[in-house]
């Protein structure tokens, strides 16, 4: 079954086509989401939501991009939504703690160890993933797609709906910001 047929069958509500889509793209979606949310349980939850959303909104998919590009966009949007909700919850808890309302919730900051990192680089990669969380959203997406997902600049620009030059600029700024964060980190932890 080619991509056009798959999309047509999905638009007709075919469940077998849904199974084919999930099996074909689950690794791509899960790994993209994991690179952004950096938590295994949350990544699974968000990845599930991506496929449900894809099935429910496939009628709006006009086929003017590849299916993988479309799924990448949904995955990034959902992952960033999840991150925003976490940040909002954190801010709300902070306000509650300041005002002395409700029970005090201890925030647990756990380093993220990506299962695909080589053992030798485990500690450094955890520090890098932590620094990536501080990046502005666009820089974070570009860096994740290129460095974590291993996409090229063309593919990344198609997903981000921008030019290759803009992606290059985002990557340059992301690396500069990461260098600053890492310099601060190592200066404080030496």
């Amino acid at each position: 079954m080619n991509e056009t047929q798959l999309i047509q069958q999905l638009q007709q509500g075919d469940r077998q086509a849904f199974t084919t889509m999930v099996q074909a793209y689950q690794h791509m979606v899960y790994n993209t989401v994991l690179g952004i949310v950096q938590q295994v349980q949350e990544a699974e939850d968000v990845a599930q939501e991506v496929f449900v959303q894809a099935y429910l909104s496939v009628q709006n998919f006009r086929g003017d991009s590849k299916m993988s590009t479309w799924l990448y966009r949904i995955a990034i949007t959902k992952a960033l939504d999840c991150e925003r909700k976490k940040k909002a919850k954190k801010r709300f808890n902070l306000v509650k703690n300041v005002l002395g309302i409700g029970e005090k919730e201890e925030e647990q900051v756990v380093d993220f160890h990506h299962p695909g990192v080589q053992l030798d680089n485990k500690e450094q990669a955890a520090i890098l993933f932590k620094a990536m969380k501080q990046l502005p959203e666009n820089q974070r997406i570009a860096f994740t797609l290129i460095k974590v997902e291993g996409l090229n600049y063309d593919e990344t620009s198609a997903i981000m709906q921008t030019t290759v030059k803009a992606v290059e600029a985002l990557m340059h700024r992301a690396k500069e910001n990461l260098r600053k964060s890492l310099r601060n980190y190592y200066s404080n932890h030496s």
Partner: protein
Amino acid sequence: MEDLNQRIEDTLNSIDGLQKAEVPAFFYTRVHARLERKLAMPQNTWMPVRKPVWVIGILTVLLVANVFLIASPSNKVSIEAAETSNLQGFASSYGLTTSSGY
């Protein structure tokens, strides 16, 4: 200083050649169950707009439109006219008009 720069560059390159993470077991089963749950949920057709910002916006527009309509001078005239015609109708139905003779 050079050591620090080298350390930073090594950290930046630490995820080069990253292997893909394995999707958790029974992922498809859970996605399928989630989809079934979502499809079984009754659709909220009576309220197509659910984002609070849109709901508040629409309510504000309706409120402003109502206030504007009530306060507009043409509305006052038509209310007075309606009241007058109502009174006349009431009077004529009970024979209370001045033209009714004995």
